[in-house]
């Protein structure tokens, strides 16, 4: 049985900004269902009293002084990879 519907697959694709053809969506439905079926075994594990671990270094609130550090990279170099720029800024298509 599928864990996700085709509609859910297409909704996920929209959230992730990916376009799926009907055939791709069917294949993705099968594969996502299989993977979710596999990972669902975690539901049977007793984790009462345990907190989740989001990072393993034990570091807390690493800060540095608020000053400009020279990395030797210019704005022009950073913008050189952008597909479209104008007057030293990134240029994007219309939003609406």
């Amino acid at each position: 049985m599928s864990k996700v519907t085709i509609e859910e697959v297409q909704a996920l694709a929209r959230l992730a900004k990916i376009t799926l053809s009907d055939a791709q969506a069917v294949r993705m439905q099968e594969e996502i269902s299989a993977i979710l079926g596999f990972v669902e075994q975690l539901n049977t594990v007793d984790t009462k009293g345990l907190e989740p671990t989001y990072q393993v270094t034990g570091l807390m609130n690493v800060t540095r002084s608020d000053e400009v550090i020279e990395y030797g990279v210019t704005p022009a170099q950073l913008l050189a990879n952008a597909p479209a720029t104008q007057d030293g800024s990134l240029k994007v298509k219309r939003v609406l």
Partner: protein
Amino acid sequence: MDIRTSRIIPIVEAVKSGNSSARKEVEAAFARIEATAAYHAVLEVVKDRALQRADEIDRAIAAGATPGRLAGVPFIVKDNILTLGSNTTAASNILRDFKAPYQATVIDRLEAEGAIVVAKANLDSFGHGSSTENSDFGVTLNAHDQTRVPGGSSGGSTTAIALELTPFALGTDTGGSIRQPSSFSGVLGLKPTYGAVSRFGAVAMASSTDTIGPITSSAYDAALVLEIMGGQDERDGTSIQIPMETLPLDVTGLRVGVIKQYMDEGVQPEVKARVAAAVDRLGAAGATISEVDVPSLALALPAYYIIIPAELSSNLARYDGIKYGHVAEDAKDLSEQYSQTRTEGFNSENIRRIMIGTYVLSSGYFDAYYRKAQTVRTLIINEFSNAFKTVDMLVGPVAPTTAFKIGENTTDPLQMYLADVMTVGISLAGLPAASVPVGTADGLPVGMQVVGPQRADMKVLALAGEIMKEAA
């Protein structure tokens, strides 16, 4: 660690003494890369910058400057680590023409000691895979059998070292991507303690387990490279300083635990036999061997395939066709440009993982999947901590099989994920672990995994060196 096994030291000595030069070493590496092009270990040769740097080093030495500890040593870098003088593609169409405006901390530090990047190595696109078959630019072949995969995702780097193209290469390991291909390719690969090596300038996959590590053919060389490129870095707020002294390791009395969960019936008998023989040799050399139970390791793979897609779906959101990378040509508005750019630029494994990550992070599912998986992660970490109360080091296989055939696992994503079943738990716990060559089965290399407590990276390499000495 045994300096006689080093392939770095002879080059540095020859360059220092004038018997060779940085230029000669770089040109020799180019020739080896060209002669082995059929293996497709390399995506791009870094010609101009490498020769320019080699000449600078030769001129400095001629002028009497003190040569660096890696003077004139060529090396190869997995193509998800930013380098100047070449593209950095992550083996993805979406970054096909990307030229980094700055380079990774690890590259800066290795260059400061005189090492020279000569080529960028192939990988599964963005590190998504265990075979290099998910590279958008074609598969890399196994150095020991051209019909088989080298493992992945750092398969280009491990084939490069197995073919002896350079003395060392860099890989990245998020869930096994240095260790598993090192095992399949018969080389030494170290996944350092999480944070021990700066991630600044590495293309992010899953930020809570991503690491950069050395791939070599000797423990001495791995330790040298780790010492130079590792340590705290102000440009990576998650980096830490670990002990970098290389101490001689006495195997006598060393408490070595064999991970019970990794020696079960799911492991190919020949792989189990090679690992068991290496364990026996350690016992004969004076180590105390015991079996160690880490029961929750069986849950590591399902936890990993929730946590990692979640993190990578967030990290890959930056590929939107605005700041850098591929951009769709004829989108009518911004939203369509995002979708077209990403649909054209990502391959099906990238998309599968992004979709899973989006699913487990969506409201309503977050607690059931993501939070649950991170709590299981705590369980695994606690069990490892307990294990290291009774043993100094843990060992087991790296992967359940030797290198598989090209195409053998490409139809079923879950089958491919199983190639990482013995490496992902260690990644979730942030522990240092090496894949150490311990012989072959039917001509294919077998690796043994050596796992230490956090920050014991040098001890892991010292034991790796002892194991390789015994196996020789």
